[in-house]
Structures are given as structure tokens and as C-alpha cells.
């Protein structure tokens, strides 16, 4: 399947769907608690990462928490 991840095209081989948790792991996001995930413009509730599926042509954005000032 092909998705848009953070505005860029990303081809993921041999699968037709993947959970949000799976994508975070595949992308090696070291601290998922420091990321808010947006799927097709909607924020995904943190408790549903394993059940929420990303499919072909979906748009995913990782919004990072930034505390610094």
C-alpha cells in the first residue's frame, strides 16, 4: 500500500493495512508518547493505536510534542 506520511509518499510493501501502533514501530519512533498521530486529518486516540488501521492512500501525520521555549 502507499500512504502519505508527514506529507511524503511512502510505499509499504506486502501489506494492505497496518495499525497505527505498527506504523510507529516500523518508523522506529523512539518515544511514541511524544507524538500525537493524525490519520486523514483526525487525531487518533492514544488508547486505540492497536485497533486503528491505516490503509492504502491514507494520510498520516506525526505531530511531535515540543516543550522547549
Amino acid at each position, binding site marked *: 500500500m502507499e500512504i502519505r506520511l508527514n506529507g511524503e509518499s511512502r510505499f509499504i510493501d506486502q501489506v494492505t493495512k497496518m495499525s497505527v501502533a505498527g506504523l510507529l514501530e516500523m518508523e522506529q519512533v523512539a518515544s511514541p508518547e*511524544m507524538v500525537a498521530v493524525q490519520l486523514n486529518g483526525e487525531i487518533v486516540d492514544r488508547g486505540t493505536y492497536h485497533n486503528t488501521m491505516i490503509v492504502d492512500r491514507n494520510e498520516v501525520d506525526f505531530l511531535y510534542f515540543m516543550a*522547549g521555549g
Partner: protein
Amino acid sequence: MVQMVQLTDKQQERYSRHILLQEVGAEGQEKLLNAKVLVVGTGGLGSPNSLYLTAAGVGTVGIVDADVVDVSNLQRQIAHSTNDLDRAKVESAAEKMRALNPDVEVRPYRLYLDASNIDEIIREYDFVIDGSDNFATKFLVNDACVLAGIPFSHGGILRFNGQTMTVLPGQTACYRCSFREPPPNPVGCSRAGILGAVAGMLGTIQAAEALKFITGAGTLLTDALLTFDAATMNFRRVPLKRRSDCPVCGENPTISSLEEHHG
């Protein structure tokens, strides 16, 4: 036509580059001189914000910070100099601001914002800029501004990255619509590091938003998160939506009192 603009000759000269802008003009400059902006934090983001707002002739600029100037601040916090070490940050910054532009009333607040004092302070201002360095304050500023209906700019920086969004409470997505709750065990600049100039890049974007809000020039950075990575110089604007189930600006908010949620 009503003539509301009464700039002095000196002000015509000082602000001539603003007045030249069709979107600002003498009327926009008059609005700036009558406006009040509060800058939360007098560090990496607060420094460029307070200096640019002062230079622009924003009539009243409040600055809030409880800290003193530390030598490790000077790599990026450009309102402070080497001879300001151990001085209160708000006093150090206020001195630079007053020297820069005597038109501006600078109001220093040497304190930590909390649920008991923030509402009274922000209600004095037309626009608030968050340049704080921790999530507790960022969420407090969001909630207090949403509850009081005061527009503000969120800003955050880390390493080579920056993010900012402008919030018009009740109209556009707030910080909590996307970020919900402060993360556990957050990493800040004191542990992760920050490229000094990144603070200037992000802080000046926030200052530009405040000037746009006051003058009505352009379109604001609302319902979007602007993020950039200075390592690659990629900038991106991620569209955001207001959430009907947002705990503070949604249809059935669970946060209705700062004392309860931030006490």
C-alpha cells in the same frame, strides 16, 4: 472619513517601514501603539518576541518569567547579555526593551504562572504569546486563553525543530484539540539541546502572527501547525481541525476551571 491616526512626526519616521506597507499603514501602526501583548517566558522564544514587538511599537508588552539569567541561556536568549548573569530575566529584558523603544510600556512580571494568577494577568492583554519551556505552562496558557477567549500563539522548539500555531478560541483548533494531555517524562532543551538560531526562527514567526492579529494584515496561522526542521530546512504546514470532543474547547468540555485541572 474618520481620522483616528495621530502619529507624531517622530513616530511617522520610526515606523515608516510599517506605514509603507499597504496592509499596515498609519492606521495599523496606531492599532499597534494601542495594543497590549503578553509574552510568557523571557527565554529563547520570549527574547525575539519581546524585542520585535517592542521594536514594532506594540503599546504595552508584558513579560513573564520567574528565572534569573544563567550562562547556558546566552547561546540563544538574545535579550540577555553576559553582564546580566544572575539578574532576573524580566528585568534584564525590560532594560533592553525600554532602550529599544520608549513608546512602549514594558510590564515585567517576575513570577511563575499558575492556575491562581494567570487569568487575572492575561485578561489585561489583547494577545498572548507562549514562549514557556514546559508542558505544564503550555497547557495552562492554552486552557486559560481558551476559557477567557483571548487569542494566542503556541510555540515549541527542540533540537533543530520548531512548531507553532495561532489559536482564536471558540473559532479555530486549540493546542489541546491535537495534543490532548501533557506527555509523561517529557524531554526539554536542557536535556535534548537546541540549536540557538532555531529559537529566533520560531520566536519571530510568533511575533509576526501577533503583529498580523493586531493590524488585521494577512491571514493567521490558524487550524494548522507550522513545523520546521532546521537540519534540512523543510517547512511544513499540517492542517488541524477543531475537535468536538476537545476537553477544553469542545462541545462538552471537562475543563471548565483552571484551579481544578491545573491546581
